[in-house]
């Protein structure tokens, strides 16, 4: 297994679809995150794939900060 940080992977197969979350990859830097994502998640004919470090996702509601639904 690689070390580094978690990157979230988003992709889509058709222009009319939005990018959707398809998984994660662990990598020591952005270039390797993209390279790994592309070779590991290669079963579907993606037209676009993007990766972003999980720490770059801005929290709007964070786990454990909300009350459980009534």
């Amino acid at each position: 297994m690689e070390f580094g940080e978690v990157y979230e992977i988003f992709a889509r197969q058709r222009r009319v679809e939005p990018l959707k979350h398809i998984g994660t990859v662990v990598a020591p830097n952005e270039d390797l995150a993209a390279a790994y994502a592309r070779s590991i998640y290669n079963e579907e004919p993606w037209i676009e794939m993007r990766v972003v470090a999980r720490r770059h996702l801005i929290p709007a509601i964070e786990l454990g900060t909300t009350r459980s639904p009534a």
Partner: protein
Amino acid sequence: MSRNREFSTPHDLDEPTRQALYDLFLVLADTKHLLGLRYGEWLGAPAIEASIASVAMAQDEFGHARLFYGLLREFHEAGIPEREEVPSEYRNFEGLDRVWDSWLDFIAANVLVDGALSVQIESLQNSSYVPVRRMVAKILQEEAFHHQHARGWLLRLAREGAKPKAELEKALKRIWEPLLQWLGRPGSEHERALVEAGIQDTDSEGLRARFIERFGPLLIEEAGLDLPLSSDAITGQWVLGTALSWEDWDDAFRRRSRTGPDPETFRQIESFRKHEYPVGS
């Protein structure tokens, strides 16, 4: 000028140009074939993710080799004899002759060999030779992914500490000079024919300039590696610190010696070649 001329088959080319283009395609095909083979040997990469990426890159290289071998068929029909299947007739980059000793050799080649191949292939993007122009875009798209992998590993190793960085430098230096030469000898008959016919958009010095402009910032500035390459303080232009020696250089093979791959490698190629490359059939 040759700007508006286009060539659809080798028959449209004069004899020296036809030979020069055949030589280029065979050099590209053999080099990609051997690069694919070497990439494919690294199922034991330092991480499973890197192994998977290596195999994906191997698959790409074999695909590209197949395309370039496919282009040769028409040259054979136009009278250029098929090469004999012996190691000494192979035109792969000499740094691929034998199995790599370490993952650092893998990364050095991933950066430099893949990079030089891309620079050479980019020069064919608006080629007057129509059959090659059609395949360049897809190849370069896949090469961009190889570069991302190479860049990611290069920076990681360069920042991992003094020892891995020094080892990486050694691996890069092992192929540095033959690789820069691989882009061609200035003033050779080959480059003159290809540039004059508008097949390739610049000569070997132009290719080398593009190569060092692209890799200088990465190798020297970002990775902080010690290689004979620097940028001019005033113009910012990247310049090579060493003069290339062209003694024993073979323009058709782009190698210093016609030894070809070692016996073990050749046995692998041979068994693979028996399956043939059915392009477009």
